[in-house]
Structure formats: C-alpha cells, structure tokens
C-alpha cells in the first residue's frame, strides 16, 4: 500500500514537473499588432490560461513591442515580449500554471564580437578603439582586426575610432550573435601624422608599434622614396642614422638579431645597397608592426626585435594603384579584384641609377666596368573563402648588384706595370608563401603558414699586379688575389597558431612550427683568378643542414580594465650535425593603467637565436656570412628587462622607458682585420684567409650587455605636429680571446641617439616637414701605440678593441609636398634636401700617413653629402 502511494505520488509529481516544463512549450497565438508589454502579458494569461506574476517596478510595462511571430510557444513569446529588459521567468514548483517574472541583471549585457575592416582596402584594422558609450568600457581590435566587448542589451552603443579614420557609432541591437563586420572609412589624407595608432596601442598595453603605411610619406630615405625601414627608426628603441648600413639596430643588438617577417617569411636582407631603398614597396604594405620588448610568444629565433610586415589583401570592388618615381628609380603598386572573393596585390621596383652613374664612373673615376642596380617584385593572391576564412599565396623576388672594376697600366723604363681591382657585391632573395586563417567559431581562430625561401649573398674582390718586359712582352711578375665570400641559405618553414578567446577577459594562444635551413657559408682565396661562376667555385663543400622546432603557449588575461598580463613560454629544439640544442624561453608582461591617461608596463623576455651573421669586422667590402649554430658554436641567448611609463591625453604624449638586455654566446671574429684586404708584400699577394670550413676556428664567443633610458614626446599644435625621441644607452661586449678578456664598447655603441621631427601644412596644397637626427659616433679600433720588438723593429698596438670613437653623426632633412589632382588621380610632388647643411658624417675611417708631410691622420670616408631629391607619386 505504501509503495503504491509512493508510486502514485512520484507519478503525480513527475506529471507535475513535466506539466511545468510542457507549459512553456505550449503553442499559443497572440496579436500580431504592436501593443504594450502589459497588454501582451494580459493577452497571454487569457489565451494560455495561466497566471503571470511580477513586480511592476522591475518591468517597463509601457514599452511597445511587436511580435515577429504571432504563433509560437509561450517561452518564445515571453522572450520576444520582454526583450531588452533582463527578465527571467520562473515556474514555482507548487504551481502548475503560474509563471513568475524576476529581474536578472546578468541578462542586461551581452558580448559582441566582430571584425573591423578598412572600407577602402578591405584589410583588417589593428588598434581600433572600441568604446561602450554607456559604461565607458573599452577594448582594441587585435592584429586580426578582431574585437570583443561587453555591452548593455538594447541600450548599448559602441563607438569605433582610429586616428585617421571616421569614427563610427553602432547600436547594440544591430549586432548579431555571430561575428559582425564593421567597416571604417579613412578620414582624410594626412601625410605627416605623428600620433598614430601605434601610440594608442602602446598606451593601453597592446604590444608592438604599428606603423600605418599611409602616414609615412614624409619619413623618406635620402633619395625621396617612402621607406618602411626609415620609419621604424623614429622608435626610441631603434638607432637613427648609420648611413650606408643595411638593416637596423635595436637596443644594443646587431643587425642580424632582428626578425623581419614578410608575410610570415623570415628575411635575411631588408635593404638595397647602402640603404638606397628598402625591399618593401610602401604602398603595397598594409601593416608593419615593430616589437622591441613585450615579444608575443609566437615570435622567436632572434634576440633584439621583431618587425612583422604584411601586404594588403587587395580591394574586391575596384582596382587601385600607385606609381612613384624618383631620381634612383620607380616603383609601382596595383591591387584589385579578380572575382568577388579573389583579389590581388602586385608591386615592383626598378632602379635606373645605372643609366647616369655608369658614364660618370667611367669618365670621372676611370672605372672600365660598373653596375649599380636593384629590383624587387612581390605578388599576392588573396582568396576570401567565406566571411571568416581566408587563404593567400605570396611570392617575392629581389636582387642587388654593385660592381666596380678598373685597370691601369704604366710604363717605367723598360717595364710595363699593370694594376687592377674588381669589387663586387650582389645578393638575391626569393620566396613563395602560403597563409591560411579561419575563425573556427566566435571563440577559436586558426592560422597556418608554409613557405620556401632562397637567399644568396656574394662579395668578391679581385686584385692583380703584373709586370711585363716592354720589349719582349714576357711576364716578369704575375700576382693575383681573388677573394670570394659566398653565403647561401635555403629555408623551408611551416607553422600553425591557435587562439582561444572565450570572453573579453582571457585569451589563450598555442602554436608550433618547424624551420629547416641549409647554409652554405664560404670564403675562398686564390692567387689565380677564377673565371668560373660562383656556384661552381663554392661547390657546396661547406653546406650545413639544420632544423629548428618550437612550441609555445601563452595566456593573455585582463582581469580588470586597469590590469593586463601576458605570460607564457616558448620551447625550441635545434639540431645540426648530430648535435641538438634545446632552450625554453619564458616571457611575462604586465600592463597597469591605474588612472585615465596613465599606463605602466613591466616586461621580462628571454630569446634564443640559432643563426648568426658574421660581418667583415673593418669598414671594407661587406662579407655578410650567415652561419648556423653548430656543435662547437652554441646558440646566442638574451635576457631582456624593460619598464615603461606613458602619459597620453588628447594630442599630447609622453613616454619614459628603461631597459637592460644581457647577451650570451655572441659571435665575433677573433682577429679582426679586413677579410678583403689585399696585402702587397714585396709584390707577392698574401691571402690571409682560408677555405670555408675554417670560419668556426676564426670566431670567438662572448657576452654583452646593453642598458638604456628612452624618452618620447609627441604633441600636436593645431595641424602642426612635432615628435622627439631620445635614447641614452651604453652597450659593451666581453670576449675571452679579444681585448685580453676585458670589456670593450660595442662597435655601434651610441651614448646619445636623438630624432626630432616637425611637420605642418602650409596651405591646403602644400605641407612641410623637417627632421634632425643626432647620434654619438660609432667606435673603431685604432692602433696608435708604437713599441719596439726584441729585434728593434717598430710595431703598432691597439690598446683595446674599439678604443676610438668617430665624430658625432647628425644631419637635417627638409621636405615639401605639393598635392594636386590630375583627372581622377591624387598626385603628390615631393621636393627635399637630405643633409641640408652638408655634414660629412663618417661611414668608416682608417689611419692615413700623408707621404708629403709624414703626418699621421684619421682619414674619414663619408657617403652622402647634401642630396636634393625629387619625387612624383600618383594614386588612383
């Protein structure tokens, strides 16, 4: 009996519970006309024969609502009637046909996720400020253009702003639950904008300084061409100046310690000869993001900085292009649609400096053969598979050649003397890359990359001295020295990254990859001239294959709007010639914004580097030998601490930073004379360098340390803007085999580094810009201490490596732009002066004994005096 009662009760209860749930599934029809919430609730009670109870103060009963569907279940009706009011319905267990409505504040908000796109180019916009106007909650779009922000349901208003773009406001109801797309239109053409999105990003703790390519037209190199590599030197962490040097120097590091990614492919060269141009056509570049600290874990393999350059995807509604000409050459950019999902971006550069330099070199400097030429070509196909999935294929090829050759002949008594020299530098670089990206859903983003690249650098010096009998033409003496430095790298690279973003407060990044290198570093010296091509001479006897694998994991947490932390590690494994090196690189960054306009950042990063560039240690012909870590040469390692304070309010920004970077296992040549020096010793040329494999025996490893303070100031005065960046630093090296193991200054140690720029519109058609750069001179080793040997001979001793400092480096650049239209094309004529007061800044120097006065001097060689430049740009 008891059992029966229990069974009956359970059945009754179950029916009751089921009945409660089934109440919500009952389909009823309500009016399809707009009416108040109160009216709909009354109608629902009558039609569904239920009782609805609620507190009138919690519900806006007067709000008018229109149902999209008049016939649906009760739950759907309640959701539609009470939309935007944060009301939850409950069914009390004791009642079968009663619904209680209660207020739930959590239902007031929702997280909106979306992509922000440049209306003009179709490219994602990074660093867009997204602000909820009601709560003042903010976030920034990331490097995918992706944002996520919490806002009030129904009342929320989101404001999208980015300097240089029109601000857009969108109401919350217009956003769907899927990933929404927001487009921003460029505001106006601002050729010299100073406070870019990079400052905003840095201010609120987004790592990396983003360089907006449209804004760099005044920050050109000395020959009037827009130059990405010149623009990054406005960063306090990058050294200004260094004429004639390719690459750049970041916080005490050498130029091979910078990872430059071009569409995800690590590049070994970024400039053409003597910095005449960079390899990037500025108009084709969408983003150039520079990291000098706070390194994201997905980047590795270099010690000092990361520069991530991405090309534009290409608009899918019309064709656009830009052509730029100057005295050295021309470049062209074209982009447009091939279909509604497929677009292209092609760019190229061609030099014509040879056309007028060659006759001058032949006529005025007696060169019988000369070549100065460079070119680049990039092509990208972008396919938008669906709104959240994209695939791109990019190819690049570029090369440089600089060649100078001359001979001279002289008759003395009955002998003929013939002397000649050939100096040649050339490099080539090409790659093919595949990039894939997909938003798997609103929380997961997947990216992958596959590429192959080839890089070659060749330096050659050939010197000969022959003596003939003038009458018989018999050879009396024949001396020849042919020196070749050859560096070739073949890379195959594959990696994948995964981002998980469950909400706006937390993000997980995971990834891994593999990079296979084949190096062929070779130096050969012969006393006969070799007429074979370089590849045959080299013969691959110095080839080395190495493999690099890595995995990383990173957590980005924003527990409150005042605080953000990035933390993670990267573990890598490097194999070469049966030897494996493994490293784990922990990294952590804190960002704290205690009050509006103020931000603090503290950063700790470890980095490892498995490839090295050995450079000709003196100022002569560059060798640029890229070599890998081996079983004898350990990878280089760096530990980096930095602190930054930033204040930014409206159009004023002040930033102060301090850093310390320590290096381990640095490489340098032990004995540092010029690799390409042809020594004439009683008519016999003496090669002092040997075959390729000996480079390991010729180098030493050591440590280094760099410390610095950096100051950055930017201010707008109406439409005029000025910017000042200053760095005070000291960088030293310590090698056991060099300088008796004592610390010595780094070759590019620069105590003071200052970059000041100012620009202003003169009228609506003219604008003016100026820039002044100052830097402490580079160091060099000078042997001026003379002493006597046991035999009484006199030799020179250098009392320390890099014991002498060149004079400070500074120059003033002036620039004006005239903007006009030709038909539908936007045109710009640029006129400028590089080094306006003709300062002869030394590129290198050596001891010179004046034979007439028997006086020892420093002979300084400068590269670029005052240089006017003229350029023309047309865009459509």
């Amino acid at each position, binding site marked *: 009996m008891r059992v029966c009662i229990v069974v009956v009760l359970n059945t009754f209860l179950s029916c009751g519970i089921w009945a409660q749930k089934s109440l919500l599934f009952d389909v009823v029809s309500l009016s399809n006309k707009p009416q108040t919430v109160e009216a709909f609730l009354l109608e629902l009670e009558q039609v569904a024969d239920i009782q609805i109870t609620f507190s009138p103060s919690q519900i806006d009963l007067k709000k008018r609502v229109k149902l999209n569907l008049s016939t649906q279940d009760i739950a759907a009706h309640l959701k539609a009637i009470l939309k935007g009011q944060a009301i939850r319905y409950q069914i009390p267990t004791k009642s079968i046909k009663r619904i209680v409505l209660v207020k739930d504040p959590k239902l007031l908000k929702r997280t909106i996720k979306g992509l922000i796109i440049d209306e003009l180019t179709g490219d994602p916009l990074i660093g867009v400020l997204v602000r909820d106007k009601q709560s003042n909650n903010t976030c920034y779009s990331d490097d995918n253009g992706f944002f996520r922000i919490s806002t009030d349901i129904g009342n929320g208003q989101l404001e999208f702003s980015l300097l240089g773009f029109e601000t857009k406001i969108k109401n919350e109801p217009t956003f769907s639950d899927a990933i929404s797309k927001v487009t921003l239109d460029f505001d106006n053409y601002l050729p010299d904008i100073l406070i870019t999105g990079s400052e905003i990003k840095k201010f609120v703790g987004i790592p990396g300084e983003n360089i907006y390519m449209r804004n760099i037209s005044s920050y050109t190199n000395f020959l009037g061409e827009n130059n990405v590599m010149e623009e990054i030197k406005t960063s306090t962490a990058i050294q200004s100046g260094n004429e004639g040097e390719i690459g750049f120097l970041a916080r005490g590091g050498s130029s091979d310690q910078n990872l430059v990614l071009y569409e995800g492919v690590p590049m070994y060269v970024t400039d053409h000869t003597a910095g005449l141009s960079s390899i990037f056509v500025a108009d084709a570049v969408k983003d150039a993001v520079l990291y000098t600290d706070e390194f994201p874990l997905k980047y590795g393999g270099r010690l000092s900085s990361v520069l991530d350059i991405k090309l534009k995807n290409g608009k899918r509604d019309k064709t656009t292009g830009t052509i730029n000409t100057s005295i050295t050459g021309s470049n062209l950019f074209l982009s447009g649609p091939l279909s509604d999902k497929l677009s292209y971006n092609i760019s190229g550069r061609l030099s014509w400096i040879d056309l007028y330099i060659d006759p001058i070199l032949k006529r*005025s400097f007696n060169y019988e053969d000369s070549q100065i030429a460079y070119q680049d070509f990039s092509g990208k196909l972008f396919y938008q598979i669906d709104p959240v999935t994209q695939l791109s294929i990019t190819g690049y090829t570029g090369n440089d050649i600089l060649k100078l050759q001359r001979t001279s002949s002289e008759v003395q008594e009955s002998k003929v003397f013939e002397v000649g020299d050939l100096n040649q530098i050339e490099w080539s670089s090409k790659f093919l890359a595949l990039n894939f990206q997909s938003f798997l859903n609103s929380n997961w983003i997947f990216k992958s990359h596959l590429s192959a690249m080839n890089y070659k650098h060749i330096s050659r010096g050939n010197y000969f001295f022959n003596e003939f009998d003038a009458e018989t033409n018999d050879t009396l003496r024949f001396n020849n020295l042919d020196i070749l430095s050859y560096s070739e790298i073949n890379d195959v690279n594959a990696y994948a990254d995964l981002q998980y973003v469950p909400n706006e407060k937390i993000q997980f990044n995971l990834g891994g990859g593999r990079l296979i290198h084949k190096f062929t570093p070779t130096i050969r010296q012969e006393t006969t001239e070799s007429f074979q091509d370089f590849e045959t001479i080299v013969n691959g006897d110095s080839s080395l294959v190495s493999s690099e694998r890595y995995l990383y994991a990173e957590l980005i947490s924003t527990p409150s709007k005042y605080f953000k932390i990035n933390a993670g590690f990267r573990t890598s494994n490097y194999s070469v010639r049966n030897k494996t090196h493994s490293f784990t690189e922990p990294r952590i960054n804190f960002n704290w914004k205690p009050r509006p306009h103020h931000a603090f950042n503290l950063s700790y990063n470890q980095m490892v580097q498995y490839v090295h560039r050995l450079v000709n240690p003196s100022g002569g012909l560059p060798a640029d030998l890229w070599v890998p870590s081996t079983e004898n040469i350990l990878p280089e390692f760096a530990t980096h601490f930095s602190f930054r304070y930033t204040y930014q309010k409206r159009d004023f920004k002040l930033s102060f930073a301090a850093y310390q970077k320590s290096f381990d296992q640095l490489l340098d040549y032990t*004995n540092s004379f010029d690799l390409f020096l042809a020594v004439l010793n009683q008519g016999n040329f003496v090669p002092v360098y040997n075959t390729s494999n000996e480079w390991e025996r010729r180098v030493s490893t050591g440590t280094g340390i760099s410390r610095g303070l950096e100051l950055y100031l930017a201010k707008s005065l109406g439409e005029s803007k000025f910017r000042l960046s200053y760095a005070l630093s000291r960088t030293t090296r310590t090698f056991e085999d060099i300088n008796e193991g004592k610390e010595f200054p780094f070759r590019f140690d620069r105590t003071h580094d200052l970059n000041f720029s100012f620009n202003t519109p003169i009228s609506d058609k003219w604008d003016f810009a100026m820039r002044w750069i100052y830097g402490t001179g580079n160091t060099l080793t000078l042997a001026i201490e003379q002493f006597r040997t046991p035999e009484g001979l006199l030799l020179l001793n250098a009392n320390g490596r890099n014991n002498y400092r060149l004079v400070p480096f500074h120059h003033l650049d002036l620039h004006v732009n005239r903007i006009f239209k030709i038909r539908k094309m936007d045109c710009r004529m640029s006129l400028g002066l590089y080094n306006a007061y003709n300062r002869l800044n030394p590129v*290198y120097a*050596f001891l010179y004994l004046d034979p007439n006065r028997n006086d020892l*001097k420093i002979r300084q*060689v400068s590269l*670029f005096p005052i240089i006017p430049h003229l350029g023309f740009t047309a865009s459509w």
Partner: protein
Amino acid sequence: MKNLFSILLIMVLSACVHDTDIVVGEFQSQLVINSIFEPGKTWSIALSNSKDITDNSTAIEEITDASVIIIESQSRKIKELEHSEKGIYRSSEPAELGMEYELEVAHPDYGVASAFTTVPSEIELTSIDTSIVELDGAKVLKVDFNIVDNEEEENFYVWDLVSSQEEEIDILPSEEAYLTSVDGNVEITSDRANVQQSKIFISDRDFNGTEYNTSFISFRNIENFQNGNPNNPNEQLDLKLRVLSVSEELYNYLKSVEESYRSQNINTSSVNPVEIDFNITNGLGIFGAYKQKLVDIE
C-alpha cells in the same frame, strides 16, 4: 645644364674623404719588456717605453733605471739583473732547461710589470729529407722531417729556413713570406698551396708524445742562395732547417706578430688591426723561452 646635372650627380653619388687630426685623449705610455731567451745563455732583457705615434714630439726611450729581477718559480731563487747599456739588463747566470721563471720589473713611472714563462725541453728531429719540386711553374724546395714529441709536456713548435751565413739569427717573423705547408695541423696557414708565411706554427695537440711527420715548401728563389743550383740536386744549398720549441707565451706572441705582418694598420680600410699577444702584465712585450735546433739542408 648638363654639366650642372653631372656635377650634382658626382657630388651626390661620390664618397667624400677628409682628414682629421687624431684625438684619443690622454695617452699613457707603457713599459715595453723584450726578452726572448735560450737555456744555457745568460739573461738579456731590453726595456723601453711605448709612444703615441701621432705625437711627433716624443720618442721611444730606453729605460735605464728600472729594478729587474728574475725569480725561479720552484726554488724562489732571485736573480737581480744589472743595467749594462741602452736599456739592456743582463745577468751572468744562464737560464736552465725545463725551469719556470717569473720576471718582475719595477719603475717609479710605470709601476710594476711582470710575466711568467717555462723553458721548453730539447727537440728531437729525425728523417730530414729535401727535394726540389715544381709548383705553379716555379722550382721550389720541399722539406720533409719528423719531430719526436715529448709526452710529458705541451709543446709548441715554430720552424723556418735560415741561411748558414747569418751569425745571429732573429727568431721573430719577418715581412718576407715564402713558406707554405700542406699539413692540416699547422696554424694560420691553410691546407691549400700558395698561402705563404715567414714561419710555420704547430702545436702538439694532435700528436702529443708521438713521432710526427710534416713537410713544408719554400718559395724563396733557389738561385739566390750561395752555391744553390736547382738543376743540380747534389750541390749543397746554403740553408739550414731551424726548428724552435717555444713556450706557449712566445708561441702566441710569434703567431700574432706573423699575422700583424700580413695586415697593415696604415693607409688601408682595415681599422681593426691584429692584436699582438703580449704576456706582460701591466706592460707590453714578451718574456719567452725557446730551444732551437739547426740542421743543414743538403
């Protein structure tokens, strides 16, 4: 207009060269100590100072008023050297084979400079053979020989060819480079022919305690030697093979001097000259011992 354009281009595109005075701050002259000695011979130490090459008003001077002592490391026996002439200090007692010595020089203007060295043991050579070979169209002398290495110590060897006519033979490298070796163990030189030096350098790292065979080639014009006749191998050449066993400090010093001769410090773009490997603390120069063996070349 065309000329103006050309001038502008030349101005723009040519490198500019100008000379400035060298200003390196206050120059500090250092004590220079030169002593390369053989066991069985009396000590001879030359003292001088270094000078700033850019300062024409100063000269290298001999130091005649220093205190110079040599300490035998094992017995701590001190020998005091007396100044004899022109900055040279001598002792009547000879250095001994296999001993370790410490040199100390004190002077009020230069402070105290010191150095250590060890006297190497005897050299044993066997199987010396010479031949005239043709290389690159020239007749050259090839010398093959064996060194019997002492297992109990680390040995450093330097060899070259010297003329029998020379009474006093310098052991320092010279500007005249005419030797090359195809032995892969030698230092500085390569495994390729035609890289010439004034001396050959090798350590016993790869043949310690064994009998080691090596060879080298002399490009010195055979006809220059008295009675030398490459067409008649039986005729005696006026040459000696000289093999030196040197202390490690002297070995490093001689090697760096050799490399210094192969580079130039003046009138070239080389702004990073070779560092000479001195073993003097608080000074420049060399305090090193050697043992030499001379063998007639036939």
